[in-house]
């Protein structure tokens, strides 16, 4: 048969070249150009990128005692997709001592929480060492189960929870922020306190290990002999000014009290002790039940997590008087020998401003006035200062006074090295213009001279103002950290090494006030703070405490305040103590402050004064209305929340209901409050 179709062999030849060329083209895109992302998918599959968490920086106190270190803990991580049908859940649960139903529940909860598209879930955190040991032996039996090691913080001295803070897994919202770009899901981050402020130094740098793993998730060895691996760089250590012993003493004494105690070394601004009451065990901020503990403390009526030392605003009361005196002296409106007669009240402004003393020459000069804490005297010299000859009118006088207060670090946050510091309140002329409709004079604010009225200070500001008096005119911004990684010249600390000079008030003024404050301890209101052999300068304060409760101004128990520094020459410690609702300054705050001074300067508490410590440790000063006010606040917050959600027409009904409830409730809670107040 003749071959008519020989030319078709050429078509076949073309086919045999063309089709392989199509394959080659596809390979070119896959292998060379990386189309479809397949090229990079091998990394992350056969190449397992293991993140190595560096140990977080250790925190020391001033005597190189470890305040906080790390302990290794393990989290149980599950990948449900890889847990086959033959997965022995019962065996696993037996080893970690949980019930099978709980395990299933946990996994379901995690899936609900993070969504099913996430593949790996943390099921149990911080497993007990026994469970870890048992599980590690059998880990290869469980597909899809892994133990992730990370370090947990550990308060070795069991103190300092309120300023060291705590760490937690980074939240989803934080992860979206640019400043946390170097973080990944599951990383730990400082949430409050020093842990947050010094996060970048404490954190260190995570390392990366590239490992090869097979399809059964077994690690087969390093990838490219570990040439791409990077080692984890541990977090830097922090040395604090805190004296662990002093800190513990302060925390012990603040147990079951609302308030705070701060001790600062005036020559450096370093914080020696920093306690906020009610004190809590810092171990609650670490470990398995961390989130549960935090939740409990958040709803606690006494608000232990509210850092009163930097966030609470108090009228400073009589502890403000030395500052009033300094301003008056510098303005030249009084001399240290200026005196006045006080008959138990100040009447120049048309209404009586009471004074606890009367007659006897208790305000015969500045020193005596401070020692006896004469209200009349300080209201008067405050008025003299702002109405003084240097000022054209009261408005300018008040603005100048406002400027003084700014210099003293009042009315704005000072800049301590932990977050969320509050600034207190120093009113200016604008404020008075607003509330007195532009018509006011020094009488409207005379009580500010004795630390009442609109003046509000945080305990930290009180302590800092005492540092200024102790230093005679300058301060360093109070701060915790002395050295980062052993280096005290770190740029992050530059701000705290800078001397802040205040208002150029002459030394003579400080001397006069200092003598007055010494007299407070020697013969005045603060005799309780006397320590044999040490010249203690102090000022008591009993701040009147009024609160607006449901539209009514209610007078509550006075706050007990005490500020002090010692010794008078070359002061080494300045202390401010506030105890809420505790009455006279000398009764509660005074002993606490003086015990702190004694402990710090003599490194012990004399046997004679141990009874004081015992009394302070044991006292519980939390008035019942704290709880009532808290529940009222929560009720109000709940109602606000409810109102927000309600459709508009139901607002009327709700208001009516609210009125009814109030009518029933008002007498009851008001009675309770009044009972406690008196």
């Amino acid at each position, binding site marked *: 048969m003749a071959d008519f179709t*020989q030319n078709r062999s050429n078509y076949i030849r073309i086919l045999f070249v063309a089709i392989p060329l199509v*394959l*080659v083209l596809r390979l070119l895109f896959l292998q060379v150009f990386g189309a479809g992302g397949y090229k990079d998918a091998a990394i992350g599959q056969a190449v397992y990128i293991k993140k190595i968490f560096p140990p977080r920086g250790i925190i020391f106190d001033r005597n190189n005692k470890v305040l906080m270190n790390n302990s290794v803990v393990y989290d149980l991580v599950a990948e449900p997709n890889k847990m086959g049908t033959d997965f022995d859940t019962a065996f696993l649960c037996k080893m970690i001592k949980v019930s099978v139903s709980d395990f299933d529940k946990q996994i379901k909860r995690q899936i609900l929480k993070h969504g099913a598209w996430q593949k790996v879930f943390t099921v149990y955190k911080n497993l007990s060492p026994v469970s870890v040991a048992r599980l590690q032996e059998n880990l290869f039996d469980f597909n899809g189960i892994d133990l992730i090691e990370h370090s947990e913080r550990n308060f070795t001295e069991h103190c300092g929870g309120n300023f060291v803070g705590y760490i937690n897994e980074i939240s989803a919202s934080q992860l979206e922020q640019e400043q946390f770009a170097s973080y990944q899901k599951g990383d730990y981050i400082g949430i409050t306190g020093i842990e947050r402020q010094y996060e970048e130094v404490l954190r260190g740098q995570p390392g990366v290990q590239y490992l090869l793993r097979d399809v059964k998730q077994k690690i087969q060895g390093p990838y490219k002999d570990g040439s791409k691996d990077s080692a984890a760089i541990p977090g830097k250590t922090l040395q604090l000014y805190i004296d662990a012993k002093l800190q513990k003493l302060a925390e012990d004494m603040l147990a079951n009290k609302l308030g705070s105690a701060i001790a600062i070394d005036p020559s450096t601004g370093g914080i020696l002790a920093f306690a906020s009451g009610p004190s809590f065990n810092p171990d609650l901020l670490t470990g398995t039940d961390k989130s549960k503990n935090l939740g409990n403390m958040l709803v606690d009526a006494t608000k232990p997590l509210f850092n009163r030392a930097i966030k609470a605003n108090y009228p400073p009361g009589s502890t403000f008087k030395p500052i009033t005196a300094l301003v008056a002296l510098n303005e030249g409106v009084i001399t240290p020998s200026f005196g006045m007669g006080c008959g138990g009240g100040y009447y120049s402004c048309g209404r009586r401003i009471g004074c606890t003393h009367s007659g006897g020459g208790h305000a015969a000069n500045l020193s005596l006035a401070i020692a006896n804490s004469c209200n009349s005297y300080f209201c008067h010299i405050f008025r003299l200062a702002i109405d003084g000859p240097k000022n054209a009118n009261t408005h300018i006088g008040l603005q100048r006074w406002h400027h003084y207060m700014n210099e003293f670090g009042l009315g704005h946050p000072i800049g301590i090295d932990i977050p969320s510091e509050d600034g207190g309140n120093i009113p200016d002329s604008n404020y008075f213009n607003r509330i007195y409709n532009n018509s006011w004079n020094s009488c409207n604010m005379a009580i500010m001279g004795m630390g009442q009225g609109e003046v509000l200070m945080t305990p930290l500001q009180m302590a800092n103002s005492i540092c200024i008096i102790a230093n005679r005119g300058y301060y360093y911004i109070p701060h915790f950290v002395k050295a980062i990684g052993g280096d005290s010249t770190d740029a992050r600390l530059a701000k705290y090494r800078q001397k802040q000079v205040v208002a150029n008030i002459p030394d003579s003024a400080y001397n006069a006030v200092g003598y007055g404050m010494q007299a407070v301890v020697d013969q005045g209101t603060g005799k309780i703070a006397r320590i044999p052999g040490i010249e203690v300068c102090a000022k008591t304060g009993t701040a009147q405490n009024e609160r607006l409760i449901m539209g009514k101004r209610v007078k509550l128990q006075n706050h007990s305040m005490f500020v002090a520094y010692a010794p008078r020459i070359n002061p080494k410690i300045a202390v401010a103590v506030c105890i809420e609702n505790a009455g006279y300054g000398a009764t509660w705050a005074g002993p606490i402050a003086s015990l702190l001074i004694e402990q710090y300067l003599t490194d012990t508490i004399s046997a004679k004064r141990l009874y004081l410590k015992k009394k302070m440790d044991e006292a519980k000063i939390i008035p019942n209305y704290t709880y009532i006010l808290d529940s009222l606040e929560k009720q109000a917050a709940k109602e606000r929340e409810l109102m927000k959600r309600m459709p508009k027409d139901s607002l009327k009904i709700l208001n009516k209901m609210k009125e009814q409830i109030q009518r029933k409730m008002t007498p009851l809670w008001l009675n309770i409050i009044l009972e406690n107040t008196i």
Partner: protein
Amino acid sequence: MKNTRYAKQAIFLGASIVIGFIIIFMDSKFFTSIPFLGYLIGMLFLLLALTPLGKGVKGSHSWLNLGILTFQPGELMKFFTALSIAKFLSLQEVNFSTLKHRLICAGFAVIPAFIIIMQNETGLALVYFSFFLAMYREGLPNIVLIVIFSIMTLAIATLLLPKNILFILLTIGALIFLYLVRRKLRRSKEILILVASIWGFGVLFSQVLVPLTFKNVLQAHHIDRIYSLIGQDVPEAYIKLNKSGKKIKTGTSDYNVRQSKIAIASGGIFGKGFLNGTQTQYNWVPEQGTDFIFCTIGEQFGFFGSLLLLGIYSVFLLRIVHIAERQRSQFSRIYAYCIAGILFFHLVINIGMTIGLAPVIGIPLPLISYGGTSLLTFAVMIFVLIRLDADRQMVLR
């Protein structure tokens, strides 16, 4: 288990060489005399595999256990089918331009393919369509190819488009065609009948035949593979349920292809080096010894390695065409084209499926994949070609 594979494959390699030498020392005439007998024996084995003598492997029943050795009759049958087609077409009395002889010739390929489909080894069955390459060379009219191509287009369109839209498109197409040829239409009504019947076939095919095939003939994993090839999800109507009413899970083929693509792509330009492939070395790619062996090459030797391999295959195929065209005897030529067709089909489909260009039908890469029967069959086919080529001046019948 993996280690014994090296030894097994080495034994089969040795056996292939021995058989190759035996073939070379045989008389060419032997191969022109056995085709039909061999075909019958092959068919017998094929049918035996369906009986309890057959051995089920992963749901397919294409294996035959003869006590001393286990093999796939379907692989062996390719050889006998090639010989038989060559023999049939070179018979004096056969005229390939007649429809009858064309149908008989196609039957040689289609009947074993049909039995293999019954054995649940669709991939192997599809290989038998590669014999159309040889038939094309021997004068299968172009219209047949056009028809086959049109049907394929129609099939893909059926899968991609909803039924109703396809129906409208077909109708519009037919009407447009009629409008274009409206003048001729007046002279002869035959065109009208032709267009109507093509339209009727298209509608029947897309509305009835394909849904019927998908619902009743194809299995869940076939449907899955076909749809994953065109990048679509399996439609609701074709989802198969198992006895307890749950969807049959097939997903594996998709995983295989993904892993295979990852392995090949990660090889990059120059590859990771011999035995340094992470994806294949640590078993991320399944079936990497058999169907997905190209991954190993792609990963370890990269783009240039793959290029070299494909080049070698291409040159090899062109060489077979060259050999075919220099034969005096039609038998040898047709046989050579049959071999080229089989090799080509294996090559394209196997490599195509590892890089996501062809459906995953488990057929080996010739001479490279692990598997004794496959290696032996290809060796025998190639050695017979060499033997026949040695007598290319003879006219064998």
